[in-house]
């Protein structure tokens, strides 16, 4: 065992009387409405008569049942199962004796209650383990005291404390009351990896039964006595704003309580990166039921007008800046022309190694290719929504958000309430993908509830959701490679940019593997709002870079995996530059693993194969995608994925997430786009916006994890970006045509 000071996150272990277990259970009444049934199904005896809170992460019942609080937002990445698994392993409790509850937002108790950056597990890995280990130690100390024996002689296994010499033994439930009175230890022992009994074993989704039986779990499912439903009308195009409206006929419609305009943020409110919203003034339609407010919205007579240029003060991770939203109604055709124009000019040099100009001048062969990708809508299956009940001195919010912690100050300021009077609770979330990092809808519903003095659930229709902004930016990139007479890659030049951000990661591979390297970028302002979308920036540049390397390998007459391994060998043995932000050995490791698992060397096995590898969110992923032509149509038969994300907590669930990344990546590269005409998105629902469907998914997906003892790194995002490159490379083998511009469907026939 390794001893670890409990100092980090110590506040979590100081008993907090204001957060007594009874209060917590009350706060959870909605989500726990079917608790007795769940307990019965888990084959656990009765609910305990009393719970004893050991620390902010867990409480133990007098019958030995343990409730573990899962601190982070659950968006489908399965943290509601995997985070409690980590606590349970260190606690030494049988998994069948564990109940899981969602923890509310509590910045005193927990850190990084965010579903973002693929960091849920990595950022809480130590504190979750400490929570379990601390409780285990307190139980042991309670037993030592009761039996008058040295604590070091007591063992704790599967919820049972034993002192072999004296023959004493007791369940955790018997010692829970005494343990809750024990001082928090200064230092605790954490398990060695070989001692893990839950971490690294596959456990089913704790919400599985509720999901398959349709129990209320999601934000949209929230029901409260006296609750009203609100929906919003926002401008039909970016670059427009509200001028005036006539709600007379809407107000006369059945069930409608009120119609009014609402300003979301005050003009002088200092927004953070996550307070983004395209439309700061909207019309609220409030009524008794969802269908009624949706119908009444159609009866509104609204006049919209062109908006002026707006400059918004923003605090981006501590950097104060002004973000400019120009006036005007934008068009996709102009976007493309502008990007091509910017990309033809000299960009901002972000990194330069050696003498790329000379290398290109002396090259015997130069390859140049350009790539692009459109705006995308996140399209979580559960549209944006949130519940709020705001009274004179308190605000209760409940619903789906990836960033409760970062939205709380904005809500408090908008309501004029002290931050401690704002309570935020998360529901299970019908997808996130980055969209729910931007919680303007929480501010909106809180302001509505405060104004009408009633509990309110705000519901976006699919059209509202898809036309509201916070899109994945549109990107463009040109890659150039110089080959010498012996087909050695002597220089690489990438120039890239986007609307409104650049996707460049100048210090990632192949930087560091080449003597001559140049990376430049540029940006274009827009009034179309954008935000983080699963693996931001990587979700374009990985596919472009990995498609380009495929062409370089082809031109050099090399196997595409061998070309990458040669470059990575150079980066390991004799790296160029100081700032390379990847581990070349781990990068090569996933390529070696995918090569082995896909039987790469035994030939193409009748398939058209494409390979790709990428590093992001501290993890490494390599993928091989196999296409077969069926009746002249390319069909993805199989994807083999190799991942190095350190220790894997819940292997089957991790595999599920990696499979999802593959399907998601193929889908977006192949089919999806948001385009604009006069500022208005041309796709507002799934009749025009294409998402991948069953018949287009790979027939099989195989996932392999590198086995190592490295602390966990990201998993939700890393499998998503590289698959786009593997797809493009396999499509080339299958059809003879290279694909440069997403969605590929506009260039070539559909899959499936």
């Amino acid at each position: 065992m390794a001893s670890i000071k409990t100092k980090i996150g110590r506040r979590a272990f100081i008993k907090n009387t204001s957060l007594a277990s009874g209060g917590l259970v009350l706060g959870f009444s909605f989500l726990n409405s079917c608790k007795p049934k769940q307990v019965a199904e888990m084959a656990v005896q009765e609910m305990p008569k009393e719970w004893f809170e050991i620390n902010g992460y867990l409480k133990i019942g007098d019958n030995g049942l343990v409730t573990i609080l899962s601190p982070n937002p659950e968006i489908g990445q399965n943290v509601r199962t995997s985070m409690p698994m980590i606590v349970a392993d260190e606690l030494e409790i049988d998994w069948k004796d564990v109940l899981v509850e969602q923890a509310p937002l509590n910045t005193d108790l927990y850190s990084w209650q965010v579903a973002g950056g693929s960091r849920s597990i990595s950022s809480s890995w130590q504190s979750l383990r400490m929570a379990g280990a601390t409780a285990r130690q307190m139980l042991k100390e309670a037993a030592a005291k009761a039996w008058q024996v040295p604590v070091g002689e007591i063992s704790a296994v599967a919820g049972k404390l034993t002192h072999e010499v004296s023959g004493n033994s007791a369940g955790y439930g018997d010692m829970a009351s005494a343990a809750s009175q024990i001082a928090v230890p200064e230092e605790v022992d954490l398990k060695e990896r070989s001692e893990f009994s839950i971490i690294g074993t596959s456990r089913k989704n704790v919400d599985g039964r509720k999901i398959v039986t349709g129990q209320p779990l999601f934000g949209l499912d929230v029901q409260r006595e006296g609750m009203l439903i609100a929906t919003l009308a926002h401008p039909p195009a970016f670059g427009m704003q509200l001028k005036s409206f006539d709600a007379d006929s809407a107000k006369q419609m059945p069930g409608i309580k009120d119609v009014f305009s609402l300003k979301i943020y005050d003009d002088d409110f200092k927004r953070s990166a996550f307070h983004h919203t395209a439309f700061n003034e909207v019309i609220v339609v409030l009524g008794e039921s969802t269908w009624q407010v949706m119908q009444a919205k159609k009866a509104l007579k609204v006049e919209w007008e062109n908006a002026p240029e707006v400059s918004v003060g923003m605090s981006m991770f501590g950097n104060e800046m002004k973000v400019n939203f120009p006036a005007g109604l934008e068009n996709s055709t102009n976007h493309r022309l502008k990007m091509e124009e910017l990309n033809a000019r000299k960009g901002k040099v972000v990194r330069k190694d050696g003498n790329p100009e000379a290398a290109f001048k002396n090259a015997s062969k130069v390859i140049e290719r350009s790539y692009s990708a459109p705006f995308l809508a996140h399209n979580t299956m559960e549209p944006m929504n949130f519940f709020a009940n705001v009274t004179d001195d308190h605000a209760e919010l409940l619903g789906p958000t990836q960033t409760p912690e970062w939205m709380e100050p904005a809500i408090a300021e908008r309501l004029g309430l002290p931050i401690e009077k704002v309570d935020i609770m998360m529901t299970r979330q019908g997808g996130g993908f980055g969209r729910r990092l931007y919680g303007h809808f929480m501010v909106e519903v809180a302001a509505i509830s405060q104004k009408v003095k009633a509990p309110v659930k705000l519901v976006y229709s699919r059209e509202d959701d898809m036309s509201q902004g916070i899109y994945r930016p549109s990107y463009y990139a040109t890659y150039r490679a110089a080959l010498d007479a012996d087909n050695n890659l002597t220089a690489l030049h990438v120039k890239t940019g986007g609307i409104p951000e650049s996707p460049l990661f100048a210090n990632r591979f192949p930087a560091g593997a080449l003597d001559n390297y140049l990376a430049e970028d540029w940006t274009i302002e827009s009034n179309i709002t954008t935000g983080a979308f699963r693996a931001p920036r990587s979700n374009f540049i990985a596919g472009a870079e990995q498609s380009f390397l495929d062409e370089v390998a082809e031109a050099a007459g090399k196997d595409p995996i061998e070309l990458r391994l040669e470059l990575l060998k150079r980066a390991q043995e004799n790296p160029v530059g100081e700032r390379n932000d990847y581990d070349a050995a781990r990068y090569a490791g996933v390529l070696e693993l995918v090569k082995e698992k896909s039987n790469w060397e035994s030939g193409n096995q009748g398939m058209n194969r494409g390979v790709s590898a990428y590093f992001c969110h501290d993890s490494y992923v390599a993928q091989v995608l196999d296409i077969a032509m069926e009746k002249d149509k390319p069909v993805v038969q199989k994807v083999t994925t190799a991942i190095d994300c350190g220790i894997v907590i819940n292997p089957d669930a991790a595999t599920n997430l990696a499979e999802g990344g593959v399907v998601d990546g193929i889908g977006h590269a192949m089919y999806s786009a948001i385009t604009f005409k006069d500022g208005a998105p041309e796709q507002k629902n799934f009749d025009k916006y294409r998402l991948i469907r069953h018949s287009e998914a790979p027939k099989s997906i195989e996932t392999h994890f590198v086995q190592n003892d490295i602390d966990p790194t990201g998993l939700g995002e890393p499998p998503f970006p590289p698959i786009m490159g593997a797809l493009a490379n396999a499509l080339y083998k299958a059809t003879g045509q290279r694909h440069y511009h997403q969605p590929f469907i506009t260039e070539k026939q559909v899959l499936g």
Partner: protein
Amino acid sequence: MATFNLNINGETKEIDVDPSTPMLWVLRDHIKLVGTKYGCGIAQCGACTIHLGDNAVRSCQLPVSAVGEQEITTIEGLSENGDHPVQKAWLEIDVPQCGYCQAGQIMTASALLKRNPHPSDTEIETAMNGNICRCGTYTRIKKAVKTAAES
């Protein structure tokens, strides 16, 4: 407004709503059965799938006035104890990621197996093609449908 007597999950429910109200919102807002999900409102995503008799239908496009005497089954009524073979297969394969679309997937899959107990892969793909899963659990869904068919 009009009064309707609906047969939902084997029980009669009396509700007073506008006749044009889609069953999706009758179920969710009036009967408080929220397992049936809203995803698009235009029958493109399948999240709102219920059974009308033995057929899988999109409840967002089914006005309450069109239901009449026909039996409605929602995810909550698919089985008494959550032990329908399709539900059991879904748990065995651990299909869900976010879980939001899965009620609709299960209702489509269970209707498919009722009319075609041993579907081929292509038949599964065709039947399930109207149900979007944004998380990309399609390969697991297919595996679960096959598992349920074998049980």
